[in-house]
């Protein structure tokens, strides 16, 4: 991933987001298998991968600029679809293993083929996605339809020639990394050395080599000797974008630990410990739950990292462990509703967050199909909605506002009217351009900046 720069307009970060595309079924009845569970751009941004609860991966490819069809510039169309994971049954524990894709991470491209890692709760797979647009014809030993020819009937030899064919995109599993996790995998992260990657579950983090599937190294283990003493789990982990020996992992208690693999084989002792002191005036029984970090992402520069907890997004300077340098409120109006959100389990929703290419803006999701964007330079923030209503081609997105009390203005929506089933947990930002992908249950929305 490139550091900084990107395709941001020179005039600053005044985004004007417009609807570009929406993928997915329209009907109200959402099949559970169609619910999108992860969204990820590749390193160039030309490919956009989504994983769903049914274990499928759908990859979209950006159309090349075409003078004859100027309006389709930058559109994403289906490139490849494949079944990555199947439901499994663990016979020892009599438990089903969900096929839901928890995370997809692309590998940097090294040849014509594309590689990505996809994982469910227990197994990580390396997929190779390759194109085939030529076909050999004129074999000696077999007919055009594949039937073997009788060798005694061959009287002359010929050299097969390559002929063009319709583009076919094939996905094949090249590696399967299995049986290394007792608990549910929540994160995978490819190292900057492009040879290793980490996978994290609730209590352990393992280090893998992409070529070796029968062995992985456990680098973090927070499982207590006595499970009765368990009070904290790992919620997310990520490698530093440039320093291949550094990674971070976040916990359910709102802490982030930065570890250096050079210090010891087992990184149980952190190098840095990031925790914001709790504000005693806002303490409640839900304080710990809402402090639980659901996502951690390094900035492209590697200088900062961002964490998402239930109500806010925090930006941390890696050089300062005592508190974040920025805190952005996502939906503070929910603070008074925490009991209800606890009751209906929404308080356990895991929202993700992402940086833009130049690290000047951050984005995260909320409820009612709202998502929030924060401009770090201008300190402005905006709430936008991913909905079919505002889905006219190149229509500008209108900022939304939630009314927190008192008189509700026109166009505002009151907190009590929010739809908590419409949650945007997964969002992705193109690594260079101002193109964003927002997953709303079973629909994938793509928005572009008008200036772009």
């Amino acid at each position: 991933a490139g550091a900084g720069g990107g395709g941001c307009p020179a005039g600053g970060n005044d985004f004007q987001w417009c609807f570009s595309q929406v993928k997915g079924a329209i009907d109200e009845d959402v099949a559970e298998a169609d619910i999108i569970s992860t969204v990820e751009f590749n390193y160039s941004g030309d490919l956009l991968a989504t994983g769903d609860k049914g274990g499928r991966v759908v990859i979209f490819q950006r159309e090349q600029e075409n003078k004859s069809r100027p309006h389709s510039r930058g559109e994403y169309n289906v490139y490849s679809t494949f079944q990555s994971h199947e439901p499994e049954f663990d016979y020892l524990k009599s438990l089903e293993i969900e096929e839901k894709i928890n995370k997809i991470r692309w590998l940097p491209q090294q040849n014509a083929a594309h590689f990505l890692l996809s994982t469910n709760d227990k197994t990580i797979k390396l997929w190779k996605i390759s194109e085939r647009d030529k076909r050999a014809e004129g074999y000696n030993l077999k007919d055009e339809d594949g039937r073997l020819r009788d060798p005694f009937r061959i009287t002359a030899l010929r050299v097969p020639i390559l002929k063009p064919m319709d583009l076919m995109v094939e996905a094949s599993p090249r590696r399967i990394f299995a049986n290394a996790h007792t608990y549910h995998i929540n994160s995978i992260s490819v190292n900057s050395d492009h040879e290793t990657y980490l996978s994290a579950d609730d209590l352990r983090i393992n280090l893998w080599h992409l070529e070796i599937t029968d062995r992985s190294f456990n680098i973090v283990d927070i499982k207590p000797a006595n499970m009765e003493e368990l009070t904290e789990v790992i919620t997310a982990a990520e490698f530093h974008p440039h320093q291949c020996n550094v990674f971070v992992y976040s916990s359910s208690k709102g802490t982030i630990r930065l570890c250096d693999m050079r210090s010891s084989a087992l990184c149980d002792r952190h190098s840095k410990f990031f925790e914001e002191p709790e504000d005693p005036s806002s303490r409640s029984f839900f304080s710990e739950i809402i402090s639980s970090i659901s996502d951690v992402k390094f900035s492209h520069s590697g200088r900062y990292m961002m964490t998402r907890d239930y109500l806010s997004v925090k930006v941390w300077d890696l050089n300062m462990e005592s508190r974040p340098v920025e805190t952005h409120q996502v939906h503070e109006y929910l603070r008074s509703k925490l009991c209800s959100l606890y009751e209906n389990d929404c308080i356990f929703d895991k929202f993700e967050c992402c940086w833009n290419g130049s690290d000047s803006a951050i984005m995260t999701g909320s409820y009612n199909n709202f998502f929030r964007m924060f401009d770090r330079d201008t300190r402005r923030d905006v709430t936008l909605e991913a909905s079919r209503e505002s889905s006219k081609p190149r229509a500008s997105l209108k900022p939304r506002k939630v009314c927190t009390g008192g008189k509700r203005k026109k166009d505002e929506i009151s907190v009590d009217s929010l739809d908590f089933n419409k949650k945007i947990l997964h969002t992705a930002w193109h690594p260079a351009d101002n193109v964003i992908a927002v997953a709303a249950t079973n629909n994938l929305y793509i928005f572009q900046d008008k200036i772009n």
Partner: protein
Amino acid sequence: MWEEAQTPGGSASAVFPGLLRRSEVGLGRVPETFAEVRGKLPCAFSNASRPVNRIVVTKAPTACWNRGSPLPRLSCGLRVGLTRRQDPDNRSLKDTMFARGLKRKCVGHEEDVEGALAGLKTVSSYSLQRQSLLDMSLVKLQLCHMLVEPNLCRSVLIANTVRQIQEEMTQDGTWRAVAPQAAGRAPLDRLVSTEILCRAAWEQEGACPAPGLGDGHTQGPVSDLCPVTSAQAPRHPQSSVWEMDGPRENRGSFHKSLDQIFETLETKNPSCMEELFSDVDSPYYDLDTVLTGMMGGARPGPCEGLEGLAPATPGPSASCKSDLGELDHVVEILVET
């Protein structure tokens, strides 16, 4: 053993060592039969007058679990689960429930409500809210062990919340201060809004933080409860059935129950569910409360302050959908429709 336990005045603690006093989990009137509970299910969302925050456990005494591994007889536990089919005794759960319900029959619904309203005015709303949060958390913890594979992060967070509540209740003495005669008459309808619970504990009790209040504070709710409960004590001779020896044991077993929960998570063996519940101080669970809780708060409950939180078509989060399916399935089994 079950019959023994139902004798009023019998030493329940021997049989149910880990059982909390009913009062301590905010129990209210127990429905006569499971059919009564079941019949209320469709109306659960609309009926605001009945106390919605009680939870009634449906117990099923069975000798054996599935998979042919005989386990100690269940002393108490939430008999809501897939194992119903594998119950070799195949005793009709409904029959058992009916028998139990009879003994616990409450006399006079009207007096209930009056007493309840009187009690409401005297008991701290914060304590009520805290109690209901505790109940809710315990339900969540127990339910999540019936799922195929519990979400460890969620379980840990809920368990930590339960511990926090328990610690606070221990600190300000309410954990043991509630007298046995209280018998769970703490009325839980007309709960005030969420904000009270969500505000810091010491804000509720006044200027002094909770540890500073000590006995001075705990006398309040206890003495307030007494007039309410003494009037109702005669109506619940069977409440002594659920008494325990002492608060220490109670707390110990409470800790133990949390520990067992994590052991269960570790092994993930269905048979552990029985062990988990064997001496867990589980409150009674009203199934419809449980179900409506899963339905996303579309009914007036402990978080009554927020009326329209659930959308017009209430639906649990995607992760709850399987829970709901399970519960529907379970209710059907229990009612044997």
